[in-house]
């Protein structure tokens, strides 16, 4: 959990990333480096392109221009097979949990495994699912449908689903949004616990400053399509820049 190891190359390396939807430009030359073992939190106003950046990293969106390397591989140049392989190393926790409504919790967790190159079957798979659920404290919910789960539980199951492939990086898209403060706190705890347990690097986007304060080793501020400010929570909180200060109200 201790911060960056400058000697090793960054897990995610972004330079001059641009992305526009039609004539609406979202990212205008964004730079970012995520190092092994760190928790990088990015804050920004809603609609500022945080989620877009996250999706670009796993190529759910194509970038217009710039450099985008994940685990040393240039994302725009990957073919489908290589991309799928890379994606197993990058977990993604979606904003609304994105559990598959039509499947039980077990099937939800099975889903990422079904196309996995070295898929296990039967008991081994079941064991893996149970252990993943165990690690988020929801082993009892294995046969429930997502509609039967509360918001916090959904988020935990989604995290379990992300963890099941043992990713090296986990991307969190607003992990506490839509949750009450107590549940949000629980999720934050869980994120930290997972990090300890699985030694993952995290890139978290949020507009929840409490969340950021607890998790972040390092923070980055997305303002007007660029990485406007960078630093630890304390550094940024002490900034005099009005655009930075706007986040600390």
């Amino acid at each position, binding site marked *: 959990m201790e911060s960056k190891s400058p000697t090793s190359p960054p897990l995610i390396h972004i330079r001059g990333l641009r992305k526009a939807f*039609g*004539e609406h430009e979202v990212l205008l030359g964004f730079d970012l480096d995520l190092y092994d073992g760190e928790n990088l939190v990015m804050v920004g106003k809603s609609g500022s392109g945080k989620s877009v950046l996250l*999706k670009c990293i*796993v190529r*759910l969106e194509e970038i217009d221009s710039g450099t985008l390397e994940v685990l040393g591989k240039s994302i725009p140049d990957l073919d*489908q097979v290589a991309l*799928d*392989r890379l*994606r*197993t190393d*990058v977990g*993604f926790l*979606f*904003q*609304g*949990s*994105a*559990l*598959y*409504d*039509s499947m039980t919790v077990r099937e939800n967790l099975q*889903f*990422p495994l*079904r*196309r*996995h190159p070295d898929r296990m079957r039967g008991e081994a798979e079941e064991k893996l699912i149970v252990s993943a659920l165990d690690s988020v404290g929801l082993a009892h919910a294995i046969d429930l449908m997502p509609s039967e789960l509360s918001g916090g539980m959904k988020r935990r199951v989604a995290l379990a*689903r992300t963890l099941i*492939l043992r990713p090296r990086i986990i991307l969190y898209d607003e992990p506490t949004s839509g949750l009450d403060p107590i549940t949000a706190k629980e999720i934050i705890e869980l994120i930290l616990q997972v990090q300890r347990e699985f030694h993952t690097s995290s890139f978290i986007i949020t507009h929840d400053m409490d969340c950021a304060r607890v998790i972040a080793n390092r923070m980055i501020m997305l303002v007007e399509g660029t990485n406007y400010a960078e630093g630890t929570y304390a550094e940024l909180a002490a900034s005099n820049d009005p655009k930075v200060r706007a986040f600390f109200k």
Partner: protein
Amino acid sequence: MSGEKEPYRGLLTFFDETGKVSLFTARFFREAFRPPFEFRELLRQSYIIGYQSLFLVATTGFIMGLVFDLQTRPTMIEFGAESYMPSMIGISFVREIGPVVTALICAGKIGSSIGAELGSMRVTEQIDAMEVSGTNPFKFLVVTRVLAAMLMVPVLVLIADAIGLFAAFLVENLKGDVTFRLFFNQVFNNLEFGDLIPSTVKSFFFGLAIGLIGCYKGYYAARGTAGVGSAANQAVVVASLLLFVIDLIAVLIADIFYEL
């Protein structure tokens, strides 16, 4: 597309959508024939699309048969052609009414449910989640649903035909004096493969259109809950419209083959 001149906007949107649907269709055929195949999901979708539409299709088929017979009877009696009722009902049901009415019902039920389901999956990022977990969501969601619709709609059409004809028989039997054997003998004496095959082929395309439009609208639904609603709505509207275009083309083609 913003900043375009207003009068051309609608036309441009239409062509843009047509182009996108064409690409989507092309992608469907590309993905459909490329492994891996999602057989289990195809089976599950066939169950949902086929079996769960059965009651609706059967009911409408039955009512259509009743109504069609009741409406036609007086006219046919007026012409003294009451005895032509079974063959006339048989041919019109198998050739046109069965496929088109069933397809419209399916467009309403299947199209909207696919549109809404995929739309909500898109909106809640479930499609993205699938994509990042290494499963091709197009193959898993779209190909299976479109194939299931393609396979199930013809089956539903045949069932609707049978039930509609049975309902027509009931009317003929109650109002007139036609036995079961006579009715169906007459129906089948006048039906040829030339009637059944074009209508079945047509039904395949109806299924394709319903599945494709439903999936397209859902797959590219706009964000937000409004996106889901409009995806479902547009899926039905566009699919229904497309059904008639396909029907027109199918009838024209069938006409050529009748002449040969």
